[in-house]
């Protein structure tokens, strides 16, 4: 179950371009900052590889969360009868269960193999297509798939509420106006309501992004080699360096959340409707 996605070796083996600035030697780091920071520095690619898994897991979970959460929000807003009540109940169930519990279900109870099989087949197919190039599709393991399912479904349950709120916030009059020019209900939702709702859901989505990114650390519990798991591997090796390692991991988490939030801020300003405040 080790190194389930993008093993460090792949990252390290990839020929890095010569850097213009000289990379400091481990001895230099040890001399200035001490032996424990030198240990962190020596294992930087191991940590960064974990960060890559964290980023990949965040992306797949948010994607699954969006693909399931957006329709769920639409069904809660526009659906009727059974579909709506079923979606609501599923949402309540998922939001009411601790993420760690969901993850353990996903990993130990769900027949993940059935899901992993086709996923791996697709990825291997992609990999063979890429074969003449230096690019490679990283191997995906069961823990990664289980973590994606757990974080993705939980995120869908929350994203559905973001989109439900955003769809409902687009005034009734927009629908009437769209219908009055002869658009169907579905056409009105698609061309008038959804474009406005998506813009309004950006702040909520920003929150959700941060939460999912941080909660990828819970995949530690099912042994996925993400950033926290790898930090743990390191400080069990050198127990004097716990603070240094966890500081480094925290810094990486912070850069990821802060950087992406800034990016989303920029995007929401860029795509804001002129004349309207964001």
């Amino acid at each position, binding site marked *: 179950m080790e190194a389930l996605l993008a093993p460090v070796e792949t990252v390290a083996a990839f020929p890095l371009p010569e850097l213009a600035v000289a990379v400091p030697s481990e001895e230099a780091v040890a001399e200035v900052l001490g032996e424990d920071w030198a240990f962190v520095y020596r294992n930087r690619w191991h940590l960064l590889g974990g960060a890559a898994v964290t980023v990949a897991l965040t992306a797949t979970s948010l994607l699954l969360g969006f693909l399931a959460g957006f329709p769920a929000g639409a069904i809660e807003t526009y659906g009727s009868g059974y579909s709506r009540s079923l979606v609501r109940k599923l949402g309540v169930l998922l939001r009411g269960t601790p993420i760690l519990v969901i993850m353990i279900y996903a990993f130990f109870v769900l027949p993940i193999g059935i899901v992993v099989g086709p996923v791996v087949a697709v990825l291997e197919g992609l990999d063979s297509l890429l074969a003449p190039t230096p690019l490679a599709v990283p191997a995906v393991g069961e823990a990664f798939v289980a973590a994606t399912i757990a974080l993705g479904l939980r995120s869908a349950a929350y994203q559905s509420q973001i989109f439900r709120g955003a769809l409902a916030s687009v*005034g009734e009059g927009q629908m009437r106006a769209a219908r*009055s020019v002869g658009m169907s209900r579905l056409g009105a939702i698609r061309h008038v309501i959804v474009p406005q709702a998506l813009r309004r859901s950006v702040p909520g989505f920003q929150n959700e992004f941060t939460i999912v990114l941080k909660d990828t650390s819970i995949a530690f519990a099912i042994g996925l080699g993400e950033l926290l798991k790898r930090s743990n591997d390191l400080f069990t090796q050198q127990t004097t360096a716990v603070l240094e390692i966890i500081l480094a991991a925290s810094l990486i988490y912070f850069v990821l959340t802060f950087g992406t939030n800034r990016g989303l801020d920029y995007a929401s300003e860029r795509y804001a409707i002129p004349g309207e405040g964001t």
Partner: protein
Amino acid sequence: MSRETAGTADDREPGTDPLLRIEDVRKSYGSEEVLRDVSMTVDRGDVEVLVGPSGSGKSTLLQCINRLTEVDSGRIFLEDLEITAPETDPNEVRGRIGMVFQDINLFTHLTARKNVTLGLEKVRGMDREEARLRADEELDRVGLADQADSYPAQLSGGQKQRVGIARALAMDPELMLFDEPTSALDPELSNEVLAVMEQLVEEGMTMVVVTHEMRFARGGATGITFLDEGEIVERGPPETLFENPDHERTARFFESIRHD
């Protein structure tokens, strides 16, 4: 297209060229009867102004005409098309009838031009360039050619409502419905909207207008219908209703809005 060819209410027998026929329409919300046996006919080229206290059913009647609201009983015809028939496609009805709203309801995420082109492209299946030309024509018609690229939030209330009118006109409606088009606007902004509406009157557009703007009613209407508590109390040419109403209720209503 001029008023002369269409004739006026004074020199023409009513019902000679009916475009819209409303027969015994009833509508209730719960136990509240909003429309009780409303019947009326609007001839092609006519401008019918609906007045009445709030809650009298004027807006509901307009919404029944383009099926944004379904009637409980009674029938409405647009020429030979029975609007209220269950097998009639509401989208076909709405394609032939334009509507302008009190709360304007421009699509906030689209420019003035795209507000107009959306229906042309998605409902009429026009290609983009053709729709653009058509939209610019309609925006020019309401005096907003220079604001085609502005978003609704960048326009004044009066400009927004004129875009709303252009959006409806672009679909080439046979009938235009106006639901209190100026009541959300400041008086000085109302005037530019009323000017566009008066221009439409001159072009011979058939219109049903819910409004409290008595100046418009006096100048542009061929007929005035006074509704109260879901019933048509009185109907006639503007002069008669303003100066010489048959009913006490009508007189009292006009008296009350005169002092607004």
